[in-house]
């Protein structure tokens, strides 16, 4: 090693400890997708709440006896199920679009490339459990087990977040755990699908988004 490149004076322990902290923090931060915006969460949450509101309105006005035991729910008319699925699909589409919009906006503001290796890893690791969940719900649908579909979407969404949290903001992990707990609880007490969705996709996203916005973007 070049002798002139050596440090001869001694510095305090604290200085070196701070050096190590900086190294650790940079290694961690730089390998994650950091453009996810709190506003993405808030907008997705609001859209989900509107969707849940429409669904509950539809059930109140169109389904005569909205009881949700496993036996009676199978007798719900196909068009009702289709309306609710369509509602859910539109919510999903709008939520994803708005979340993407705010992430792109944040990346632009940070002057970062929108598409990065970390972003790619986040997306792939989010999509694998999510696609698994979607197929699983389709299978439930074909077996007429509608009662488990709503909690299952929360469960798989939570697992997807947990999985992707390794490549994006660490707080996503806690959102994921909340969704999983909510999904499992929903399976134990069936019949509250709309409320589950409103809390899981609406309320939790808004809380998470607000916390993140307050923490990192103000």
């Amino acid at each position, binding site marked *: *090693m070049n002798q*002139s*490149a*050596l*440090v*001869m004076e*001694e510095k305090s*322990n604290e200085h*070196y*400890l701070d*050096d*190590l902290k*900086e*190294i*650790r923090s*940079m*290694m961690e*931060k*730089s*390998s994650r997708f950091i453009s996810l915006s709190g506003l993405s969460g808030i907008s997705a949450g609001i859209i989900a709440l509107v969707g849940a509101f429409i669904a509950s309105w539809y059930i109140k006005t169109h389904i005569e006896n909205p009881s949700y035991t496993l036996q009676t729910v199978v007798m719900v008319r196909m068009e009702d199920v289709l309306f609710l699925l369509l509602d859910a699909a539109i919510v999903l589409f709008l939520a994803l679009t708005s979340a993407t919009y705010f992430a792109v906006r944040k990346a632009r503001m*940070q*002057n*970062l*490339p929108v598409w*990065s*290796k970390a972003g790619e890893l986040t997306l792939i690791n989010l999509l694998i459990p999510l696609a698994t969940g979607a197929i699983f719900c389709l299978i439930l649908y074909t077996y007429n087990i509608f009662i488990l579909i709503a909690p299952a979407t929360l469960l798989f969404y939570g697992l997807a977040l947990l999985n992707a949290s390794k490549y994006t903001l660490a707080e996503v992990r806690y959102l994921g755990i909340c969704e999983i707990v909510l999904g499992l609880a929903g399976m134990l007490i069936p019949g509250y699908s709309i409320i589950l969705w409103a809390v899981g996709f609406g309320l939790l996203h808004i809380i998470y988004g607000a916390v993140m916005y307050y923490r990192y973007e103000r």
Partner: protein
Amino acid sequence: MKDIIAGLNKEFDNRVRLGIMSILMVNEWVDFNTVKTLLNLTDGNLASHISALEKTGYIEVKKEFVGKKPRTTYNATPEGKKAFRHHLDALEKLLKGNS
């Protein structure tokens, strides 16, 4: 004591350079703006440290065009990675020795 301190590399005695190398240890070909945002720096400040690291041969620079926009990316060279690991070992030893 002096021997342990001698293991520290003066090139990494600066927080900015330490940050740049940390980022490049775990990522390949990172662009200027990403480094700038992560370290919260101004253009000029980052550029001067980048060129210092380039001069020592610890990082390599690639300039290319994405459409009409120039894009500069950086990568740690094998020597750079080796030197940084050496520096990290020295830091750890130093902290263990002093506590």
